[in-house]
């Protein structure tokens, strides 16, 4: 069971790095590249973005599994040698918060961590991408604070479980955990 955590700002090149890492890994493991698509086609812009992403990945030999919430359901589609990429945790968290009946955020967090563990155990490597949004200078509303707090906690728990963790800056991955 291997978890790789990749985090960076918007347009930092984190997705590109994650995809390259996944492709490299699948060459080694011989497993299928699985992309867990958490994006929901809520409007026409989102629809065309999703289509574009799907086309790009199809060319590169990815298999896409659409799953907006309850990610552990993906486990039944994957095999022990597979490389699974989920991009990104913020979209998934948004879906858990807004597509499902309201629950306590702490409850959502522990379910997400369990989902991650289930998927990681059923594949070769699980790659999780997320967004760094913890650096702005605004006095946040209660809602935003709660959101940042739960995302921050999820990140910390993922890093704890990760075999490798990368912080991507301007397209450059900086290894924060898992170096030799």
């Amino acid at each position, binding site marked *: 069971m291997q978890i790789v*955590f990749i*985090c960076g*700002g918007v347009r930092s090149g984190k997705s590109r790095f994650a995809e390259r890492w996944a492709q490299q890994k699948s060459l080694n493991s011989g497993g299928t590249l699985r992309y867990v698509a958490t994006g929901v086609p809520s409007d026409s812009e989102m629809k065309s973005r999703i289509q574009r992403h799907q086309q790009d990945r199809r060319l590169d030999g990815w298999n896409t599994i659409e799953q907006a919430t309850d990610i552990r359901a993906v486990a039944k589609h994957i095999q022990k040698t597979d490389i699974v990429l989920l991009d990104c945790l913020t979209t998934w968290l948004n879906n858990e918060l807004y597509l499902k009946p309201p629950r306590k955020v702490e409850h959502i967090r522990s379910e997400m961590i369990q989902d991650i563990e289930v998927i990681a155990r059923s594949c070769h490597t699980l790659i999780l991408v997320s967004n*760094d949004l*913890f*650096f*702005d*200078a*605004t*006095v946040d509303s209660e809602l935003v604070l709660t959101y*940042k*707090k739960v*995302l*921050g*906690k999820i*990140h*910390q728990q*993922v*890093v*704890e479980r990760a075999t490798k*963790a990368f*912080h991507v800056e301007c397209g450059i991955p900086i290894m*924060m*955990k898992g170096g030799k």
Partner: protein
Amino acid sequence: MHFVTGGAFNGKRAWVKKHYHLTCPKEVLWLSQYKSASLPTDVNHLTHSLVVLEGLENWIRLEVMMQEQPEFYWQQLLERWMEWESQSMNQMILIGTDITKGIVPISSEERNWRDLTGRCYQKISQHASRVDLIWHGIHQTIKQEAKS
């Protein structure tokens, strides 16, 4: 003086507790702005030899920014804290959230806050014997002076 910084909700507090083995709350005077503590301008009131100040960015916004010369005020505070630290076994740990990497805030007050916070953190780092960046629970020591 040990400065611990990094983004919000990145596990700075947990790291300090782990690093200093702070399991018992009696060992330390932990002043947190998030719990509405005020900035200790008078060091004579410090009851412990180990003091943690948490939430610097908020104190800077609420208690430093309105001073006539905020940076000078901050410098004097730091000097007072260092003076206190030079006595016996005293040590101070400062925890401040990095708020300097977001989109430029629309309100000038928030822009000033961001600028001042960056400058205050630079001042701390100049004087601190150790500076750590915390990223999702992982620390990176970016400054460490040899113990004299």
